[in-house]
């Protein structure tokens, strides 16, 4: 016999096969999802979901596409959480010590409660990446926040009203653009191409017959 879970959507009780995810259980119950569903594979953060298990006090947070139903789940979806998006020109700002202060001063009001980390749908150490940002260690913030899917759950929980994923995003963009050294091989190749250094070889290759190119392809050397 198939195992069954009792779940509640919008307060209504449904019995669903216990191996469904919260997302597929909603569909099983007839919900044609229009919001709260994007990639269906844990990348986009569209499916942030809050649930409470009957009889428990604590709410849980999860991505509905990545979480199996459990018996007694009371479920509400959170299609997006409004954040305070800051406007900046990445080519003008710099990875300075006070850049975070300028755009996200509220991070300095963090009370260290850890609610963000506890609720993170990706089990990231959110409080830590905010701490790195406060300290001006942008690179550490960038790496610590790298797997964030911007679901907004942590921000919904934060007493200091921090838009965590945007803090991480700014740190990552600054790191990618300014902090890690430029890739010299890339710059050289870009210049070589724009100077037309490959044009002749390319013309010659394209002038060959498909038969000739096939021959080249089948015998090309493959880098180990």
């Amino acid at each position, binding site marked *: 016999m198939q195992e069954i879970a009792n779940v509640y959507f919008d307060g*209504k009780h*449904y*019995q669903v096969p216990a*191996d*469904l*995810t919260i997302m*597929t259980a909603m*569909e*099983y*119950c*007839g919900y*044609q*999802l*229009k*919001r709260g569903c*994007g*990639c*269906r*594979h*844990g*990348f*986009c953060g*569209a499916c942030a979901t809050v649930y409470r298990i009957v009889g428990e006090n604590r709410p849980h947070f999860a991505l509905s596409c*990545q979480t*199996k139903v459990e018996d007694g789940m009371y479920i509400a979806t959170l299609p*997006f959480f409004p954040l305070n998006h800051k*406007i*900046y*020109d*990445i080519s003008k700002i710099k990875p300075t010590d006070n850049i975070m202060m300028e755009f996200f001063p509220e991070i300095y009001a963090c009370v260290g409660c850890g609610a963000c980390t506890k609720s993170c749908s*990706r*089990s990231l150490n959110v409080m830590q990446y905010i701490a790195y940002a406060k300290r001006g260690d942008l690179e550490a913030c960038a790496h610590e926040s*790298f*797997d964030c899917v911007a679901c907004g759950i942590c921000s919904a929980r934060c007493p200091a009203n921090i838009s965590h994923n945007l803090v991480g*995003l700014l740190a*990552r*963009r600054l790191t*990618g*653009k300014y902090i890690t*050294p430029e*890739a*010299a091989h*890339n710059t050289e*190749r*870009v210049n070589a*191409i*724009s100077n037309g250094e*490959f044009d002749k*070889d*390319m013309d010659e*290759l*394209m002038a060959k017959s*498909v038969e000739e*190119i*096939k021959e080249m*392809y089948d015998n*090309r*050397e*493959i*880098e180990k």
Partner: protein
Amino acid sequence: MQTPFLPHMLESIKAVEASRAERFETEPRRMDADEKTALLQEFHPDYGDNGFDTIKIGANTGEKAPKELVELLHSKSKISDVNINLDNIEFDVDVLIIGGGAAGASAAIEAHNAGQNVMIVTKLRMGDSNSMMAEGGIQAADKENDSPMQHYLDSFGGGHYKNKPELLRRLVMDGPKSIKWLNELGVMFDKHEDGTMWTFPGGGLSRKRLHACADYTGAEITRVLKDEVQNLGIEIAEFTAALELILDEEGKVAGAVLVNMLTGEYLVARAKTVIMATGGAGRMHYHGFPTTNHYGATADGLVMAYRAGCNLLYQDTIQYHPSGAAFPSQLFGALVTEKVRSIGAQLLNIDGEAFVHPLETRDVAASAIIRECGVREKGIATGQGNGVWLDTPLIEMIHGEGKIESAIPGMLRMFLNYGMDLRKTPILVYPSFHYQNGGVEIENDGNTKHIPNLFIAGEAAGGIHGRNRLLGNSMLDVIVFGRLTGQKAAQMAKSTTTGKLFLNHIKTYEGKINEAGVDTGKLSPILLPKYTRDVNEARVV
């Protein structure tokens, strides 16, 4: 956590473990050209007639396509019976971009920077797209032992020599500069201490040419582009789908009819030029395959453009990713990135034998798996069909402990959720519908052949990749041709005058459906797949 593997799986894992040391020493043989051809002919879903129908109307009449796509093309428009007031213009812009993936975002940035008034409409949220999901990486020939010619050769061979040469040339020549553009926007590519980018090997690549951002390459690129679009103040209408293109009296594209996904309200957008960046079709589940694609991948762009008079190219070829997750059922179809194979994991049958080189091109690897599970009966039953092993513990034998965590953290986490540790046990995979190799045929500027001022970018376009796209060439194509179409559409918008708006092509097309007697009785585009069970069966207690 208790092992989720079933007893017969655990039995087979023993065989996998037993052969690991020997496999560590040897590399599986690569097939020669004849063997590959024979394998594809017999086992690749594209090669048979099963699951295909003939298109009976429109520009590709007489050609074959997956029957799910033919059904969309033989259906009347969703607004066939709706009276849309084209004088009531809700949005009036220079460049309208349909689709909020990386192609749409790149196009928007360029068109905006060219001084045009740009708007993006997208069906889900901005960024909810296949672009967000790309894991493996993005190609560009920017290492010393590599060249644009080598990239061209790999891609042309991989595409079965059917790529449109000028498009492919642009793809490879603009590769390095696209990486630079992204890096300068703040995309965090994996780099060595001195700034040299890590580049990885991949199926069908003769050089290590894949640039990556851990296994979140697409997410990292897409979120940066989305942020940039927002910072530039470009207007975005989310949860707003395009239903049909609007043409003017000269047959130029002149906008689109939109629908608010949540309220059902129809909206008219007028535009001087339109860029269709609606992505793929995985959610159409051609031939019944599961898919790696996002929820909105339903071929809408192909349907809209075709109805307006465009032609499709290579609509009959689909890329099945060799490694879709086959177990547990919650992950069915989800992508196991090719990077897992490029860093050493091998494909094994029930007896723990490597039956194919893990870095064969995708079509070859997928066909080999289909053969192994089919006629050879060497697959492992999963409850939803069969799968083969992908031997992930081998990765750490080759590269040392910690490699899985650092190179493929997303994969590690995805399976840990279900009690499977890639570092200790292999995982089960089976091919999954991954990418539409073809699409609306484009010309050199990303423009369509038949409709002036209409551009196609990204996965919706056909021609760049021939009949089979190589890994990492699609993220590159969305950047290269996304940017190009943004520039070209902006340029065109400056010199164009849009006439009166018409939807006559919808009735004309409908006439052809009736004439050919192929009406399916359904309406298209479908916008979203239907996964709901019949509600009346759901037991409300």
